[in-house]
């Protein structure tokens, strides 16, 4: 009998193989949706199924939520891409063969991410994450335009270096654990390592954490390791941008947090908090300023993703139940909101036939409904009520101010600078006299609306179950 | 009890009537003094009465562009000034109406009259009306802060802003001659000159267009309306004179519960002081020239400085600071 945690990995991998075999992109698209739905079901099943700490897999409050979000966004993205990608065929940007490849890769990527999430083995986690990364590299290059190839190439090189560094960190963790837990599997099993952290050698842990921070931080998109992120978002297919921002960054951060917990378990070791605070703030402020000069709408929102990852890393660096809770909440809210933004951007790009801000004007005149949805999504990511991001930013800023008033000024400054840019772009795109063509949009708006509804609900009411998970996860994070 | 009330009421009525009655005389005195000092015979003392009577006899000519506001304003202005005048203790303090408002309200009432006059000046839509109104309002912005500081000094000294209270305080200790009070007296005099459009702020007898302030506002008025405006400005002058008197030379003023005799004494004293003040005004006006409009800030600024110093001194004399 297959278990839920196995299902979330095996279903996508299986369907990846299947999709690779399926001819005809329409069928493939539908199959992709079905497979993602199945994975989503498995994710929900995982939510209700009991916790487990096995040799290879772990299921605790910390990662069930991630798996749930992962599978959910995977599902909605599949929905979106099913209605969206056909357009790419029509415009001749993709050939059916590539689309087949795309669908297979999509499932493989989902599987790898889930693998990284539920892995109790730091090696396995590494493998899953890097697999997902490499697949997205290929996806980014899908359009095979010079820009796409270059973005993929940049992504590929930076990511590979990150991979290597992360692996070195993993080796070091093993080295730290091996004398206590003995040779072999145990000293790579996360749960055991966590328990033994106190007796580990602080110096090695320091070394390990630094390599892991740089390695996985590259995938989180922390400045100055972020360079691949904007181009990858801008040049890849829109559904992939949604998945990158909504999921891959989260999974990388998840890995980072696991190791933070580990290092924090050894008081003698370097305190990861301040390092994460600094890197988070750097990313946050830097990305906020970078928003002003953007001309490409997808690259714009890619930078906003960097900004928000920075905020999360800052929050987790602050630590403590409240900040961790807020960080987790922000993580969930951001992946939902940002993916919905990329869906909306996909619509906009179809409506105006361009990704350049300069050619997008007066949407509220030509496409009122789309304009409203887009505006709501952007305002949501900007941290305005009644959306969930407001709740998380409220918690982060208030608790920071309560603990270190002057430190709180920096994230606030970054967010405000970013907000100025967001609002400027929002107004320019949806207001004013419309320019350029106004095509009909045939992509489905269900995923976008669904995400917005979820974020809205979270802003008004957080279900106790969710709160419970987050709270205990926050305790685990210390 | 009721008899008391009746007496009080009569006293109040008498006061209002007397102020109205004496106002033109005061103006006449000022003009006469000025005439004599400039080697002219000058108009008779009762000229003020004659002017008003003449104006009342004439028909009033309204500009086509004049609205209802233009016609109603004179009555309101006159009424407001008159009520304000009734608030100032003249020959007796603590008359039945004096309590109804304090200095702040008094200033505000005059301000209301001024605003109405300025509006009336703009109503017809001529350039001169505009000049007058804008300058009048500008001068007010200079005068009111100084006035506020004077009131503050009084409040510090006498512990009240009700005129009867202040008057009683100064009656009760007549020797309360303090530097701060002298200074605020100077300030109040300057403010009074500004408020009543006297030299050097404004020249009441000029009709040289560009130097007019008050006259420019009322340029379009004629007949009964003009009569009311003139009467109002005379009242205002009297009001300020008796304000100065009641604040800085209250001796002889009858206290709240004085009998008929006391009132008569007070009346005589007040009339004398009033006319003396008017005469002094005349002397002042011949001894100084009218200023250019944009030198006024300096002139009224002096009042402001006086009043401010007065307050600081009041703090000192009232003892501890901080």
């Amino acid at each position, binding site marked *: 009998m297959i278990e839920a945690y196995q299902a979330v990995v095996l279903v996508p991998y299986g369907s990846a193989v299947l999709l690779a075999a399926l001819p005809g992109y329409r069928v493939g698209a539908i199959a992709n949706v079905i497979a993602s739905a199945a994975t989503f079901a498995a994710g929900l099943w995982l939510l209700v199924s009991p916790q487990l700490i096995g040799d290879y897999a772990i299921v605790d409050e910390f990662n069930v939520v991630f798996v749930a979000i992962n599978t959910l966004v995977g599902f909605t993205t599949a929905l979106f891409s099913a209605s969206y990608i056909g357009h790419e065929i029509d415009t001749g940007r993709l050939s059916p063969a590539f689309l087949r490849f795309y669908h297979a890769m999509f499932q493989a990527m989902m599987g790898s991410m889930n693998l990284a999430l539920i892995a109790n083995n730091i090696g396995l986690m590494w493998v899953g994450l890097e697999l997902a990364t490499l697949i997205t590299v290929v996806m980014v290059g899908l359009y095979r335009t010079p820009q796409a190839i270059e973005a993929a190439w940049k992504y590929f090189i930076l990511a590979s270096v990150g991979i290597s560094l992360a692996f070195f960190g993993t080796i070091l963790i093993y080295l730290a654990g091996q004398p206590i837990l003995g040779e072999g599997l145990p000293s790579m099993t996360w749960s055991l390592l966590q328990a033994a952290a106190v007796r580990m050698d602080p110096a090695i842990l320091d070394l390990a954490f630094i390599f892991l921070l740089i390695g996985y931080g590259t995938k989180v998109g922390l400045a100055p390791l972020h360079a691949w992120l904007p181009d990858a978002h801008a040049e890849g297919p829109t559904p992939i941008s949604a998945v990158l921002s909504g999921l891959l960054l989260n999974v990388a951060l998840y890995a980072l947090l696991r190791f933070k917990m580990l290092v924090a378990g050894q008081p003698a070791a370097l305190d990861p908090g301040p390092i994460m605070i600094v890197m988070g703030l750097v990313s946050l402020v830097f990305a906020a300023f970078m928003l002003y000069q953007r001309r490409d709408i997808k690259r714009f929102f890619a930078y906003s993703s960097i900004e928000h990852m920075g905020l999360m890393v800052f929050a987790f660096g602050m630590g403590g139940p409240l900040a961790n809770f807020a960080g987790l909440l922000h993580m969930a809210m951001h992946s939902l909101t940002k993916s919905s933004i990329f869906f909306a951007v996909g619509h906009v790009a179809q409506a105006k036939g361009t990704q350049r801000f300069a050619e997008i004007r007066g949407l509220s005149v030509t496409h009122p409904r789309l304009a409203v949805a887009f505006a709501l999504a952007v305002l949501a990511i900007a941290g305005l009520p009644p959306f969930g991001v407001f709740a998380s930013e409220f918690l982060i800023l208030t608790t920071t101010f309560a603990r270190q008033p002057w430190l709180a000024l920096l994230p606030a400054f970054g967010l405000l600078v970013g907000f100025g840019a967001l609002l400027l772009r929002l107004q320019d795109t949806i207001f004013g006299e419309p320019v350029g063509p106004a095509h009909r949009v045939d992509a489905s708006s269900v995923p976008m609306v669904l995400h917005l509804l979820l974020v809205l609900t979270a802003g008004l009411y957080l279900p106790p179950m969710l709160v419970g998970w987050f709270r205990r996860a926050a305790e685990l994070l210390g | 009890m009721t008899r008391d009330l009746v007496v009080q009421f009569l006293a109040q009525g008498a006061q209002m009537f007397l102020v109205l009655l004496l106002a033109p005389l005061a103006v006449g005195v000022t003009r006469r003094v000025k005439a004599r000092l400039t080697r002219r015979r000058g108009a008779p003392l009762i000229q003020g009465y004659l002017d008003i009577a003449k104006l009342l006899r004439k028909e009033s000519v309204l500009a086509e562009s004049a609205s209802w506001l233009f016609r109603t304003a004179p009555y309101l202005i006159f009424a407001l000034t008159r009520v304000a005048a009734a608030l100032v203790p003249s020959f007796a303090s603590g008359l039945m109406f004096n309590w109804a408002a304090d200095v702040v309200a008094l200033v505000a009432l005059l301000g209301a009259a001024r605003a109405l006059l300025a509006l009336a000046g703009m109503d017809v839509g001529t350039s001169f009306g505009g000049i007058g109104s804008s300058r009048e309002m500008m001068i007010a912005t200079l005068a009111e802060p100084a006035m*506020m500081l004077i009131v503050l000094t009084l409040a510090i000294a006498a512990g009240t802003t009700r005129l009867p209270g202040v008057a009683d305080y100064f009656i009760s200790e007549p020797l309360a001659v303090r530097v701060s009070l002298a200074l605020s007296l100077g300030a109040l005099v300057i403010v009074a000159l500004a408020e009543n459009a006297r030299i050097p702020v404004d020249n009441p007898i000029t009709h040289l267009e560009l130097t007019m302030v008050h006259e420019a506002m009322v340029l379009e008025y004629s007949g009964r309306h003009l009569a009311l405006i003139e009467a109002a400005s005379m009242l205002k002058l009297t009001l300020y004179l008796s304000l100065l008197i009641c604040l800085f030379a209250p001796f002889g003023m009858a206290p709240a519960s004085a009998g008929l005799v006391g009132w008569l004494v007070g009346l005589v004293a007040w009339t004398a002081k009033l006319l003396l003040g008017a005469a002094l005004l005349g002397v002042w006006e011949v001894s100084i020239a009218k200023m250019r409009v944009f030198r006024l800030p300096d002139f009224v600024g002096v009042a402001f400085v006086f009043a401010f110093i007065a307050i600081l001194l009041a703090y000192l004399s009232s003892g501890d600071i901080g």
Partner: protein
Amino acid sequence: MLALYASGAALAVLAGAAGLAILARGALRLVYPLAALAALALGAVDLHVLLTGDVLTGSLPIGLPTIGLRLRLDSLSAFFGVVINGGVLAVSVYGLGLDREKDLTPRVEPLFPLFAAAMNLVLLADDAYGFLFSWELMSLSSWALVVARHTDPESRRASHLYLVMAVIGTTALLFAFGGLAGPAGGYSFDTIRAHAAQPAIAALVLASALIGCGSKGGLIPLHAWLPLAHPAAPSHVSALMSGVMTKVAIYGFVRIAFDLLGPPAWWWALPPIVLGAITAVLGLLYAVLDRDLKRVLAYSTIENVGVIFVALGLALAFRANGFTQGAAVALTAALLHVLNHSWFKSLLFLGAGAVLHATGRRDLDGLGGLIRTMPRTAIFFLVGALAISALPPLNGFVSEWLLFQSVLAGPMLPQASLRFAVPAIGAMLALAAALAAACFVRVYGTAFLGRPRTVEAARAHDVPLAQQVAMGALALLCILGGLLGAPLASVLAPLVRTFSGGMLPASGSGPTPFSLVAFDSARSVYDAAVIALFVTIASLVTLVVVHRVSERRTRRGPAWDCGFPDPSPATQYTASSFAQPLRRVYGTVVFGARETVTMPPPGDRSAASLQVTLVDYSWRAFYAAPGAAVLRLAERLNMLQFLTIRRYLVLMFAALVILLSIAAVTT
């Protein structure tokens, strides 16, 4: 409890109206009737609470986990609720008169009830999250209203600045509540009340609160958005923003400084007093020099907010020194001014809206003579103008009088800094009052009096009945509020006692029930009713007498104008020329005003020209400079987008090596 349900229902109605209007264009016309009904209900509940003084509390399982959404309607929120819903009611009635085809747009109507609901929610909220949630919702909905005329780049600029400033303010409030709640995160207000903050934290909280509420209320230098945003919105919305939303800002400050922050220290008083006084004077100087009718009104809003902050500051000072009666006088002054300003500012903005609707113009120099073309509006506007100029016996003067009384009591304060601040403050307030009179004489004189300067002004017509009713009601309130100042004050007495510890002498202590008494009747009394009575009697008597004794005949003729009248309306004094003396006296100091006259040489027939240049220093310092700095920095950093892969690797390598060296040196 029932009342709470009632208000909940009313809020639901508002939300429903919004929803309807979003869904169906036909439903747009339902918005204003529903909004009016809801406002009526809410106002009734608030009034009930204010009069009975009982406190309604409730909580909903939404909002932050474990805290939930706490609701509380005490006398303070009830009072502000009365203010707000009064405004909303008037504006909704005004909205009934809007032209269904032309004026009702899906960009305005759906957001109007949302805006109203958000403002009410701010008052109801009893926990930090709920408060800030609805606060920000208020900003958001009003932002959408400001940008309703989105094709106009100016209004886009205004709305951008507005929302950015609003979010800055909200961030400041986030800090304030963060400091109040403490690291434990006790976000509900009763938890906050339970423990007072340490002085250091209190200082930070107060500063943040001042920034947060000041930026919403338009405290200089946080004001710049207000004169841009308020006029940009449709006029009835401007009325709501200026007359009502600024009061929500005041509410926030009162709630934090008088309620949540615990017993005050005397120095808390200084920032609000000083900033408020500066704001009062500068706001009006801006106003008297501006030529746009609605912008003038917006600037005068800034002034009034400044005045209110001065009063609040004085109340804090008195209360901190245990001089509760002074605190009571100052607080009453503040609250009454909140009420009065909401009335006459709404009235004036509605009047401006009527003018705009009738003539299509907002520039004062393009109007004139409206007193004949739209007589009713002219009367209402006149009442508003006189009231806002703080002239007796209208309502503006009541609060002004009380404020002056509290200033006059200032010398009793022990702290030297406060005692020496007091005279300066008093002088500045007096200056502000005089400037207000000048400003509104100017506005009324150029817009309504004189002769029409343009065809539009000449062709103007009065507005529909509903709008006249709205304005008339407000004008009536301005008059009644002036006459019944004392009874109003005694209604507020319990509320004032709760938050200042003292109260005014009971309304019986004065000579008549209408006489307003500060401290005691021997010190200072103001009896509006009696004065008004005497003025009326006096003017009637004068009328009768004069008509009896004088020549009755009245002839219409051309204006005299010293003998050479000019029929052209261009010869009238314009708003700019009216402002000239004030510009010469004050503008040269405050705005570095310079006039350059270019006079053609004799014989040259070309026109002479007068150039006036003003410099807005606060804009330069607080807006232009930082904005430019951000953009410049953004440009500098932008090169990081265009590095080569190798350089990115260098960055990565540098990060790695730096961290490693940190690890190497730390033991």
